[in-house]
């Protein structure tokens, strides 16, 4: 991978003034309103409540905002490639191969009538021409690296035959097998049991660090993002309201972030009631 030898300063992804809008009977409504950030080979967390535009940001980077939704950006450059000006065909070559995305719920994001092996192999075959034997061994090897003990059996299963945690590890395998440079994880654990959430996130973390990938972790969970990311963007109503290093999260200045932080329960809780977000503090209403 020649691009990984580029200078440390060259950013992996530059985003300037990204806008995503959807038509409504009242006219077009912007769900992402001018988002800008620069990402290196680091772990960026995007936090926000439902409808804050964080998921749409993830899809917009892959140019997968479906019509009638529309996206535009002043600048959207990935590893020196101008994504906005790319043909759909060239964009397709990039998807999966260089930028990949882990989806939320394996129950819905895996094809129910294709075996797990076929789905993972497809991710590889789409971008590389390999002999069947080699594809098979890469799939088995990948499944092994996401901690699936008996990959030979699992490749022949269908998604409804595996648990949620296992489904999500299969998802990770599928998205990482073509060795992308940037991984977007869109609420990768919110559909999972609390007990397997940490396993899945640790796994993503480990693989991302090993391979030196960039990670965008999209979540509504502040603590989780603070634990697994280097830098955090807090989104609200389509805009970034706070941008800080993960360890500086407690120094957050925006009232929305402060309100969110105050609403997180602590281990040694002394408050009778957790505070409710007071939205008048920033929206002026």
């Amino acid at each position, binding site marked *: 991978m020649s691009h990984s030898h580029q200078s440390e300063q060259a950013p992996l992804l530059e985003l300037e003034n990204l806008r995503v809008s959807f038509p409504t009977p009242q006219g077009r409504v912007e769900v992402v309103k001018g988002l800008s950030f620069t990402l290196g080979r680091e772990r960026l967390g995007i936090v926000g409540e439902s409808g804050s535009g964080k998921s749409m940001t993830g899809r917009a980077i892959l140019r997968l905002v479906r019509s009638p939704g529309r996206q535009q950006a002043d600048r959207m450059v990935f590893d020196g490639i101008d994504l906005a000006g790319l043909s759909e065909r060239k964009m397709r070559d990039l998807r*999966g191969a260089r930028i990949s995305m882990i*989806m939320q719920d394996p129950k819905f*994001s*895996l094809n129910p009538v*294709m075996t797990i092996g076929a789905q993972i192999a497809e991710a590889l075959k789409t971008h590389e021409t390999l002999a069947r034997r080699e594809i098979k061994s890469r799939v088995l090897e990948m499944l092994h690296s996401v901690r699936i003990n008996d990959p030979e059996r699992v490749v022949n299963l269908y998604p409804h035959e595996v648990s949620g945690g296992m489904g999500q590890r299969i998802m990770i395998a599928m998205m990482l097998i073509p060795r992308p440079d940037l991984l977007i994880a869109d609420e990768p654990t919110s559909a999972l049991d609390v007990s397997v959430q940490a396993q899945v996130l640790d796994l993503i973390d480990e693989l991302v660090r090993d391979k030196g990938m960039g990670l965008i972790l999209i979540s509504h969970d502040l603590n989780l993002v603070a634990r697994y990311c280097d830098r955090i963007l807090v989104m609200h109503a389509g805009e970034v309201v706070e941008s800080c290093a993960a360890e500086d999260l407690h120094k957050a200045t925006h009232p929305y972030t402060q309100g969110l932080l105050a609403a997180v329960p602590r281990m040694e809780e002394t408050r009778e009631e957790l505070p409710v977000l007071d939205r008048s503090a920033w929206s002026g209403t």
Partner: protein
Amino acid sequence: MGTRPLNTAAPSNAALRKTAGAIGGFIIVTLLTFVGLMAITFFIGRVIPIDPVLSVVGDRATQEQYDAVRIAMGLDRPLIAQFITYVGDVFQGDLGHSVSTNRPVAEDLARVFPATLEMATLGIIIGVGMGVPLGVWAAARQGTWVDQLIRVFALLGYSVPAFWLGLVGLVVFYAGLGWVGGPGRVDIFYEGLVEPRTGLLLVDSLIARDFDVFWSALDHLILPATILGFFSLAYIARMTRSFMLDQLGQEYITTARVKGVAEWRVIWTHGFRPIRVPLITVIGLSYAALLEGSVMIETVFSWPGIGNYLTVALLNADMNAVLGATLVIGSVFILINKLSDVLYRILDPRSR
């Protein structure tokens, strides 16, 4: 790992017994459905205000003659006894005697049913072969002019009467352009040339290697079959489109796009494969509908099929013929339903 253990081992004795049990259950259920069908057709046939005796003796017979025929037909016995006799006869292949053709009903049906089968089969092939791709295409281009055009085309199939389309088709393609053969199954000078082995003229002529008959039969078949096909196409295309729209909104379609999969593959492999299962039901039902519901087309094209036969029998109060034809159509329905059940299990891993 929280997964269900699956049949990883070689098929055991228990598994074989399970399969045998499933097949046995399948046969019993099919038989029961068939007997139920016989019961319904039989009792409806007996309660409708048509006197089967009158249709035999005519309305100028004396009371003695009338009574004699009534006893000879067994109509004086209790309904249940009549039904049991009827079921016994049917299982021996005896559907009674037709009053209007003066032949055994089973023999008549063996002659007319293949004619309908041939037309409906070609019709459904046209309907599926065009309806499914059109439906998928419309869904993939939802909201564009392609979609609108296909929807209007499909709507026409819903709203245009079959007999009108049949007549217009004859006027334009037979009388006007001379591209196709006219009414009937084959040109008259070819009639009765090939030995009816299957009753399907296309197949019989191929077996006999009589290609003149084959082309003539195809010439006659193509127009009515296309018109029938158009009606099933309309239904199949609409259903395919709505199934596909539902599929294309699923999360795993986005997953496929994230992987960088080409659009045609997203549509056919990820979108279309899961809808084969519901589509089988739709196709099965439209095929059955073509087999029973082609009366209009058969009339317009003088097609000696089961629809025509049934209509004539009904108008002549020929109850044995009506019951027999209904039974055949009902059995086809049962058969197609059971067949789609089997295909379901093969195609959907979740139902195995």
